[in-house]
């Protein structure tokens, strides 16, 4: 692999020919993807196209049926979410994975709690509370109190907490599954702000799954269109436009309905 060292070095994640089968259903039929350092990749596509499935493979939540994942140019077999996390991959799932009854600070540190030294490893709530407050201040997310249970927060606040949780822990790659889903224009604006601020701090590469074309072109450096388990289009955000993407989707549908005339 001496041919293009810079290329290999700048590439943080590469997935090759990922196939994912759930019994008789094939959710991904040979998807490839690459993500460069400091880049935001937007993934667009219909419901059920396999976007979340692809993401859960990159986070180590589920293993692909076929295909290979490379991280920093190294072939890896992710064993678990913890394994992927140890490689700097963090994610915010579509369902946010927040425990509603628990406080903001407990959610922020869920499954990587700060504990006191000693055999009993008791929770250090004070440190987690303080760290959470610092972290939220740092990325500009404001909540009335970090002791509030997350069920008392608005959709935008919950999303912001989930994003903050993902970046807390030196994440190098952040995966966001529909971070703007079910969000009003104002709340969406705040999350977009937050994402752009994280990007501006450098060092963070982001893959975000989106439904809104205009919003995606606004934030992402590169976009990828997925349909029925395959990538059907890929380009730099600057090189494409909403009408063009719409046209591609429409064409794809037409060919799906009567393949002969495509």
């Amino acid at each position, binding site marked *: 692999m001496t041919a293009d060292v810079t290329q290999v070095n700048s590439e943080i994640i590469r997935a090759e020919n990922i196939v994912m089968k759930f019994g008789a259903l094939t959710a991904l039929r040979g998807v490839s993807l690459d993500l460069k350092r400091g880049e935001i990749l937007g993934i667009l596509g219909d419901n059920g196209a396999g976007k979340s499935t692809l993401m859960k493979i990159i986070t180590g939540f589920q293993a692909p049926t076929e295909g290979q994942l490379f991280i920093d140019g190294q072939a890896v077999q992710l064993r678990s979410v913890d394994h992927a996390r140890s490689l700097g991959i963090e994610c915010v799932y579509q369902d946010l*994975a927040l425990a509603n009854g628990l406080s903001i600070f407990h959610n922020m540190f869920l499954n990587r709690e700060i504990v006191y030294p000693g055999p009993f490893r008791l*929770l250090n709530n004070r440190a987690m509370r303080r760290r959470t407050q610092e972290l939220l201040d740092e990325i500009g997310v404001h909540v009335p109190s970090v002791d509030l249970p997350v069920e008392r927060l608005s959709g935008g606040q919950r999303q912001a907490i989930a994003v903050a949780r993902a970046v807390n822990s030196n994440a190098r790659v952040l995966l966001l599954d529909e971070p703007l889903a079910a969000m009003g224009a104002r709340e969406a604006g705040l999350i977009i702000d937050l994402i752009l601020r994280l990007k501006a701090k450098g060092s963070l590469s982001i893959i975000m799954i989106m439904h809104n074309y205009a919003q995606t072109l606004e934030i992402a450096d590169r976009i990828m269109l997925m349909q029925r388990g395959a990538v059907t289009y890929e380009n730099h955000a600057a090189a494409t436009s909403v009408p063009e993407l719409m046209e591609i989707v429409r064409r794809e549908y037409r060919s799906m309905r009567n393949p002969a005339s495509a």
Partner: protein
Amino acid sequence: MATTGVTQPVRRSSTGVLLESVLKWREISILLVAVLLIAYFEAENRDFLLTSASLENLSQFIAPAAIISFGEIMLMIGGEIDLSAGMIFAFAPFVMHFAVVAGMPAPVGLLLALLASGLIGVVNGVVTLFLRVPSFVTTLGTMFLLNGLTLTLSAGTPVDVPGSPGFQAFFGHWGYSEICWAIVIGLMMHVLLRNTRWGLHTVASGGNPHGAAETGINVRRLKIGNFILSAVLSGFVGILEGCRISSVDPQAGGSQIMFLAVASGVIGGTSLAGGSGTIIGGLIGATVLGVLNDGFTLIGINAFTFNIILGAAILIAMVFNIHMTRLSRLGGAR
């Protein structure tokens, strides 16, 4: 209120704040119920608490239900239940008995009994988590299975409790031994639930099982651990009760004690749907039931009436739990 960044004031109505403070003190309000009940029975019957015999009696009603409720509460917070608890209670002392008959010292027999109880917990957990049978059904099965096994092994007849007098006194025969165990175990379980990752993850996996798994929490391991915990506590209580009454009875415990334990947890504020609950609540719940039981016995209300009142108490506690939470959500932030 001026807002910057991702700020949204959490709107709270005054009723929301009021309900929230009531909720926060839910355990206190149940404790208050217990205190009022004690005062009432004390007024009705001077001998209720102030003689040491009735206090001892009361403590012996509370302790077994409380200790088993601690295990059930951990399971219920995670969204599971153990219906076989009362049968593990009856089974464990026989394991100890047979171990001692086979020539082992009583403490070793005790350990073996707890180990056997733990294994039943493993079976409950593995069948529930890996074979995906709802725990209600799994433990319903092991409940009948164990009952039959205990009756077969014992040929249906009680046996003597093994061990020296000191051993027996320590493990239940001394009048206040059981309540001491309940308090010590309760404190340990409280710390486990409130101050360790294990407890926090139990709450998280009950509230949002899928989300908990996505953060990398091993929900199966956690829940199997709680099945083991519940089973070991149930077996231990079986031995305490055996020592207390100086007889190991295959008919002891049973679903009556299991339901008392579940009721204690529910009255104490644990939600059967998972995601919330407290150990202290279980202790207070068991106390309320114990006071009701003793009080009605002393003022001459029979067991049938007691069941009516117990049933009503559980229903009221449950309605209170569900609707207070819902109301506070409506009244408070969205």
